[in-house]
């Protein structure tokens, strides 16, 4: 079976849990930006957590299904319509062949996910179905969806959707706050900031700018002070420059001391800007849910605290699959 795309939405792409192991040649992990929401959508339709979903940013697609199926939509709060009638988010939605699904306006957050029983069945490239648009790799023809596309859906191994749960309980659904605290582990080149510069990074209220996509998110706020130095050979002239190095996913760079950038799942794999802290793995979904304008505080934590938060996040993820 397949979805027929009538309108593609702003930047709708096929994503799964990502493509690990090719970052050393510049291919980022990719995958759903908000992994927890994507996983919840898969749980609702009886898929595996690793099945591919559609990630929608801001403006969703309009599509029809060519067969009876079950879908679920999770993530940023958005109005959903089946044949023009409003339906619920975070719940199983049975569809009949010919049904048309469309979306209204977002009322918070940035990205929402459409899972379908059987998963989106584009070919797996380097172990993943995720779209890496810059490299024209994975997903549907290596790009975001376009009007007229036919998006193949798997047969779910011939099994009916397992009724794991009808909907995601309120207490498990992520929040979409306008003011968030993101935990970061200072490190990498943090010694290159002045004490005042580091203090600014972890005490200021940063505003997410509209310059935010799958590669990275840029924040407005005060200048962050770098220590002046004689630059090492090959490092470039600005104190925020280093000899080009690998970029940790989630790392924060502050080019020229202005507007910190958090690299996300489609990160460029390296470059010449010093990183000074990294968003812990447990909070990457939280960053992904931010809408422009979100007030963001970076709270420094230790490695032990990061690992404890990671274990907590795993417990929440598992709870969905019980």
């Amino acid at each position, binding site marked *: 079976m397949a979805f027929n795309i009538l309108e593609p939405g702003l930047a709708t792409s096929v994503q799964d849990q990502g493509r690990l192991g090719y970052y050393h040649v510049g291919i980022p992990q990719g995958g759903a930006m908000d992994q927890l929401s994507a996983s919840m959508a898969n749980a609702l339709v009886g898929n595996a957590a690793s099945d591919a979903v559609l990630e929608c940013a801001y403006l969703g697609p309009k599509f029809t299904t060519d067969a009876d199926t079950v879908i679920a939509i999770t993530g940023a709060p958005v109005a959903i319509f089946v044949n023009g009638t409003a339906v619920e988010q975070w719940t199983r939605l049975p569809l009949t062949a010919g049904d048309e699904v469309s979306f209204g306006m977002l009322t918070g957050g940035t990205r929402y996910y459409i899972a379908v029983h059987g998963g989106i069945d584009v070919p797996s490239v380097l172990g993943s179905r995720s779209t890496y648009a810059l490299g024209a790799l994975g997903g549907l023809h290596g790009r975001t969806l376009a009007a007229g596309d036919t998006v193949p859906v798997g047969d779910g191994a011939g099994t009916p959707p397992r009724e794991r749960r009808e909907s995601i309980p309120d207490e498990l659904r992520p929040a979409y706050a306008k003011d968030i605290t993101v935990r970061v582990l200072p*490190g990498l080149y943090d010694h290159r900031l002045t004490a005042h510069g580091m203090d600014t990074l972890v005490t200021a209220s940063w505003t997410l700018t509209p310059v935010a996509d799958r590669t990275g998110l840029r924040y407005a706020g005060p200048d962050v002070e770098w220590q002046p130095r004689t630059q090492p050979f*090959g490092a470039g002239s600005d104190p925020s420059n280093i000899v080009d190095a690998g970029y940790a996913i989630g*790392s924060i760079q502050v080019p020229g001391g202005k507007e910190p950038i958090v690299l996300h799942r489609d990160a460029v794999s390296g470059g010449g800007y010093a990183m000074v802290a990294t968003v812990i793995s447990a909070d990457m979904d939280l960053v992904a849910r931010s809408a422009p304008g979100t007030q963001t505080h970076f709270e420094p934590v230790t490695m032990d605290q990061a690992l404890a938060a990671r274990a907590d996040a795993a417990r929440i993820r598992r709870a969905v699959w019980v």
Partner: protein
Amino acid sequence: MTPTTQHLRAARYTWGGDEFLFVEIAEAMSLTANFTANAMASALAARTVDGIVDICPANASLLVRFDPDVIPPGSLEELVRDIEHEVAQLSEQTLETRIVEVPVWYDDPYTGETVARFRKGHQRPEGTDLDFAAEENGLPSAAEFIRRHHSSPWLVSMVGFVAGLPFMFQIVPQEEQLEVPKYLSPRTDTPPLTVGHGGCFACVYSVRGAGGYQMFGIAAAPIFDPAQRLADFEDFMIFFKPGDIVKFKPVGEEEYRAIQAEVAAGTFTYRQAPVTFDLQRALDNPTTYNRDIMETLNGL
């Protein structure tokens, strides 16, 4: 002068969150630092340790992605420190690699069009990126800069930024390195296969997109082929690996078009030959050494 031996201080270990270990081998770029990064990456890969997700050697550093649920950060650091020690003890610093001839149409009209499009806000709004690069290096002309660019080989010191983009470091003494500042503000567009330069690094842009390196010309053949159409891409969609040695070959329009036709017909292959890269020889006498390794291409 380039020292005949270069001793690196102990590497600096730090964390990029709970999934990345970052090892800064040296603050400054050098062949020795890059050799160490790649040697450590190979040694770490050879151990096939559970929980290591990706090993990313860079110019003068190493980034290791790991799964802390499988290997605790402390154990990983201990392991990589062992490997650093092991690599420092190596008596022979050689790398089995290859030398590849990369045809480039320097100062071509395509690059010229892009260069012209981004003059506003450039360090040298009049003229071209090549004129600027020549001036910055105290060279009399763009033509002389181009000659220096292709007359000595380059070591692929890192692959990344975007899929398959090689960073290259010229195998010449530090005082002969071509150094050019990056654009003051990054461009929103760079055509694929543009030959760029920023700081002491050359690159070939593998995909279309943003970029900050000065632009000198266009490579004639693909370096990233997701469809794996050409024979050089049969095993993998990305052509370059860290440790590859690149010899740029200047071509004019006619040869550029002929190569493009071969690419379109699916018959193009890169001229390449196996070579053993010997760090000590490269440091001791780069001129003779470069002549020797470039000679291996000529027998083909």
